[in-house]
């Protein structure tokens, strides 16, 4: 049963990851990322970390990706066009690079033996899965990183608020509506200093 769940959600994770990376529309890529995060949360639960799995959905899929979606809709990001690459030389260099890379892997496995399918891990202990064990470790051994991460989040909030603010010199016009922004593919608007 565990194997079935693993293969199902691993396939889902890989499939949606490929969609994230290849789909031209950023909205579809973001929604695929949600699917990937969800399947990884299931894999976390399978690995005896239910709290981390639920936190993954709550924090990652429920907040971070929503932030991505907001920004995509705000900036009205369009679908990517296909890149115009010079196929000739680049293709051969890419193939050579891939062969070298895979050769490295082959060498590594040939030296140490391919260890897919090792022994199953020991049965889950209550301590690993329970909230009490996790919280005790977090607030005793890892208290300093916890506080530092709190400070980091504060800094990030302040930084993000400042970075995304309108500069004070611009006045807020009533029709300054990001929803109807001009088509960004009409070319960049260079600031005056950069025109040489």
């Amino acid at each position, binding site marked *: 049963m565990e194997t079935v769940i693993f293969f199902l959600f691993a396939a889902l994770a890989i499939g949606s990851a490929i969609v*994230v990376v290849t789909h031209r529309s950023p909205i579809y890529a973001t929604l695929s990322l949600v699917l990937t995060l969800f399947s990884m949360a299931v894999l976390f639960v399978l690995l005896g970390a239910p*709290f981390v799995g639920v936190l993954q959905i709550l924090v990652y899929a429920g907040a971070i990706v929503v932030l991505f979606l907001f*920004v995509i809709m705000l900036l009205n990001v369009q679908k990517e066009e296909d890149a115009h690459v010079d196929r000739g030389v680049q293709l051969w260099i890419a193939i050579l690079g891939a062969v070298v890379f895979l050769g490295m892997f082959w060498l590594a496995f040939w030296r140490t033996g391919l260890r897919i399918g090792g022994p199953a891990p020991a049965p889950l202990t209550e301590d*690993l899965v329970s909230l009490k*064990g996790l919280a005790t470790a*977090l607030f005793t051994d890892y208290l300093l990183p916890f506080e530092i991460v709190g400070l980091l989040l504060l800094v990030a909030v302040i*930084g993000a608020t400042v970075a995304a603010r309108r500069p004070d010199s611009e006045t807020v016009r009533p029709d300054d509506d990001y929803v109807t922004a001009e088509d960004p593919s009409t070319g*960049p608007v260079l600031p005056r200093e*950069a025109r040489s």
Partner: protein
Amino acid sequence: MSVPISWYLLLSAVLFGIGAIGALTRRNGISIFLSIELMLNAGNLTLIAYARQWNDHTGQLIVFFVMAVAAAEAAVGLALFIAVFRQRRTIDVNRLNLLQG
């Protein structure tokens, strides 16, 4: 039959590779960001797999911190994207080349 840990590690490596390909080949800044999140998640999976292997909380706790850092990074990065978009009206990374040359 239970699932050996090395399968999880292999899955994590594959996801990391897919994320890396995305981060290197996309032109859209937001898509690069999404691929980076994918890579972070692959790292999380590795950490949890090892936490399972050695019955140690540390892996799970590091994942907490990684998630918090990823959230902070996403917030700041997207704020920067908004600021850049306001100036240059594009987030195509090929066009954001004012510091080039």
